[in-house]
């Protein structure tokens, strides 16, 4: 890993593409997760009663319960979405970049 490899990689347009795509994707997903979580926290802080409303007429189960579970599931799904694209598309791009820099 001499300096020339690094230089070659940097000049490869695919490297620019990889960094741009991955960074946009990662920050978007991070923003989605943060928006979901802090949205939930703000509802708890400012409108807790809305989460305590019954899910249907006369139910004991409240709205907050499926929402809480949905947030847990969304965290898992978001990691799945990222891993799928990163381990496929991004890793393939990386492989090509390394190949072309040899």
């Amino acid at each position, binding site marked *: 890993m001499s300096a020339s490899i690094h230089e070659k990689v940097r000049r490869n347009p695919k490297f620019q593409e990889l960094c741009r795509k991955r960074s946009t994707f990662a920050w978007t997903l991070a923003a989605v997760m943060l928006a979901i979580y802090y949205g939930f926290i703000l509802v708890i802080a400012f409108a807790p009663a809305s989460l305590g409303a019954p899910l249907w007429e006369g139910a004991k189960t409240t709205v907050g319960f499926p929402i809480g579970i949905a947030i847990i599931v969304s965290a898992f799904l978001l*990691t799945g979405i990222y891993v799928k694209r990163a381990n496929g598309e991004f890793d393939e791009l990386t492989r090509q970049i390394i190949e072309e820099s040899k």
Partner: protein
Amino acid sequence: MKPITTRVLAAAAGASSLCLPALAHAAGALEGEVVQRDTNVTAIIMFFIFVVATMGITYWAARQTKSAKDFYAAGGGITGFQNGMAIAGDYMSAASFLGISALVFASGFDGLIYSIGFLVGWPVILFLVAERLRNLGKFTFADVASFRLEQKPIRILAACGTLTVVALYLIAQMVGAGKLIQILFGLDYIIAVFIVGALMITYVMFGGMLATTWVQIIKAILLLSGATFMAVMVMWNYGFSFENLFTAATEVHDKGMAIMAPGGLVSNPVDAISLGLALMFGTAGLPHILMRFFTVGDAKEARKSVFYATGFIGYFYILTFVIGFGAIVLVLGKPEFMTGEGGLIGGDNMAAIHLAEAVGGDFFLGFISAVAFATILAVVAGLTLAGASAVSHDLYASVFRKGRCTEQQEIRVSKITTVCLGVVAIILGIAFEKQNIAFMVGLAFAIAASVNFPILFLSMFWKGLTTKGALYGGFIGLIVAVTLVVLGPTVWVAIFGFEEAIYPSKYPALWSISAAFLATFLISKMDQSEGGKNEAILFEDQYVRSQTGIGAEGASSH
């Protein structure tokens, strides 16, 4: 997480995250005098089987552990799935198992709020940190932070951050372990602390990361199986209908329908945000968690680890939620589990333990008790290894010997440190038996979030970071975090006995993280030294490596 209320549990558990003082007020329980129960023979036999099995693993691991890479990073040969299980194991401590179910038992929905806070940091770690960490690091997170900065000051700072976090956690764990084992097994506190210390030294010293990882994986499987069984039994009792379970729970619980809505735990938005930041960035700054990213072969496996870990942790939190409600309907009000005054025997933190007995009898109670003990062991082993690596890899090999020492010398220092840490943990565990240590885990989290994380994050993302900036920023984060915790309710009021806290919140993270980032930014900007300019140039190569893995540490052959 940690919640459990009291020092006891708080202490107990573990790992990572668990522990925010927040939860500390939630339950109430193991505080104060602990009643030693009759010796629990089933539990002791099952725990003995666990010890024998893990000793076998340690023996096997010891034979494969030869190089420094084997010792610190299990040879880089752990798969993403295994590592995900181990990370989940670090997170599913006794404190989180007992603490969160206690919180649900006491307050219902509020328990779910905490679980979610502990979980959502993981996706963010994956998106922003995990693969860069894997591509840049070798054995410790200081490898990453000092990649293009001056080795000596940055490694010293990172080692201080690591050792402080590890020490606070270890004390909390040892005290919690002693009390928990006293309650569950009927063993003497001091004996329990010695057993934990001795086993932890054995795992780490002989088996290194390989043994530590497998002990954690086994414990995670046992805990998930046990918790699944309990949750299924609870649901089976209610025809697998949540509506039926909630109906029954709201009928017997003092708070009635209030357990189905947010209560008072998270009422102030500033506190809520501060807590959220501490959980998220604290997790990303815990040295024993970060180390796990170096045990997998490449960035691909590192990503998978977080995916699996998030799945297991999320599943586990859903189980603890069901278990907490299960305890409301199957334990609350049953005379065999209640004290004369209407509380749970052993306190709220025992809710899950009592539920184990209610749904599975003595045999299952023994199993869950043994799993709780195993959980503590697995977590302290990981902590000890992280502390030993900071001393041997960062301080000894990189700073003191400036890289001029053999791997064997470095491993020897690591093993000596492991013994020292174990002995210190035992001594402190005994010394702190009667102390209020509820603040310790919260402080550990705040330090991880305000010292380790900002340096790590900026070193990977910001070209302009200089050694000076990182150093001052890290120390300012440390000072602000420690000061606010001392002036806050967990120390100023609970330990010093003042009427009112100078800093009214338990959560310093919002201010200490901001201070660390701001100071690092400003001081780096002002740093006009040659060294600083050179570091910006080095960033380019670091960037290529962090993005592509070119030059990264690969998996070893075996």
